[in-house]
């Protein structure tokens, strides 16, 4: 049995259609997708562009929140049908020749415009969501490849003796600072001594006592510096020697080396340390 032709029963007015829409909307499911399906079905049965437009709006909104590109394309398709019907009914000849008028002619023209904009928005939304998905897929693929590459790459292992050589280098640096202190103490002491010898006593006795105190401080500085230098250099050299021996024993490919040099001049002294570990 074929569906009966509603046209033969006298047509449809905008008021009838509005009442029907109210009933349809009142009975819509809470689930947005079910509501879109029901509106589409009713729109196809009644040929009402408002129902298509409503379905398209709901589908677009749901597609936007759920990031579903297929639903966004369905929104576009629904909006295009609403635009077709609106465009058809906004034509004077078409409108006056039919008894099927779910909307007024003025509303049909407005509706065609609204539906056209909605179709464009829905299409752009679908493209936007597809682009997001493509970017996410590319990022996931990049992460996968990176994790594969990291799994293949051997972990960097410290060469044998590196810790000893590094520790020795630090100790040498401490020793070098001790040498600096030693040099400074000696230099201060010598300066004080020269000044003390040039004083005329007993007129400058007070200055002599002051120089004596300064000399004692300079001596202390020199003793501490000497001790630190001795311990630092001794420990440093010992650690580096052991470290280099350990590295050489590990294999011929290891090319670690340490080069130390020192200098003294009238301003003081220093220690330079170069190495490759």
């Amino acid at each position, binding site marked *: 049995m074929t569906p009966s032709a509603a046209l033969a029963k006298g047509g449809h007015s905008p008021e009838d259609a509005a009442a029907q829409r109210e009933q349809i909307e009142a009975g819509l499911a809470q689930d947005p997708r079910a509501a879109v399906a029901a509106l589409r*079905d009713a729109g196809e049965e009644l040929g009402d562009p408002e129902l298509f437009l409503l379905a398209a709006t709901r589908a677009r909104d749901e597609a936007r929140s759920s990031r579903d590109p297929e639903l966004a394309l369905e929104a576009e398709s629904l909006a295009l049908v609403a635009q*077709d019907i609106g465009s058809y009914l906004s034509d004077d000849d*078409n409108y006056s020749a039919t008894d099927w008028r779910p909307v007024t002619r003025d509303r049909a023209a407005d509706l065609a415009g609204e539906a056209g904009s909605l179709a464009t928005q829905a299409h752009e939304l679908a493209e936007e969501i597809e682009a997001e998905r493509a970017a996410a897929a590319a990022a996931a693929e990049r992460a996968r490849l990176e994790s594969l590459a990291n799994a293949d790459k051997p972990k960097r292992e410290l060469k044998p003796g590196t810790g000893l050589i590094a520790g020795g280098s630090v100790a040498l640096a401490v020793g070098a600072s001790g040498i600096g202190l030693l040099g400074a103490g000696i230099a201060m002491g010598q300066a004080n001594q020269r000044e003390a010898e040039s004083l005329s006593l007993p007129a400058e006795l007070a200055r002599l006592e002051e120089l004596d105190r300064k000399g004692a401080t300079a001596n202390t500085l020199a003793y501490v510096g000497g001790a630190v230098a001795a311990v630092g250099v001794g420990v440093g050299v010992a650690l580096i020697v052991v470290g280099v021996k350990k590295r050489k024993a590990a294999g011929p490919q290891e090319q670690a080396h340490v080069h130390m040099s020192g200098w003294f001049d009238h301003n003081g002294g220093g220690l330079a340390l170069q190495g490759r570990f």
Partner: protein
Amino acid sequence: MGTLKLLTIAAAAFSALLAPAPDTDEDCGNEVCVYGTGGGAGTWKPGERMSRGKRNKEAKANRKRKDVALNVVLEGGRGSVFVDGRYLATSGDHAQRGVKPGRHEIEVRDAGQVITFGVLVVSRKATAVALVVHADR
């Protein structure tokens, strides 16, 4: 008549006996084809329109005739179909409508662009008619 020719005729006759009798009729123009079952289809008159008065007169004249199931299929593009001023879906549960034999105005449009329009004259003998519109032709 040679033996080979006799065999050929016999094979053709046998094939004709085996083949089912076609129950479809068709009228296929450049852009629109009409197919029908039940011993008739219809004819397509491109570019013709029907006024409201003509539509009412046609409906009145054929009101006692049996409905014919009408489908309109759009190929090679998108658009919406309007039969006597009312939207008809091209797929799904509501893609078929019962119409009376006689003249019906059909328009297919994509937004503001009319793909085709004309009058479909549905045969009284037809039980179902399918109009196929080739939008790409």
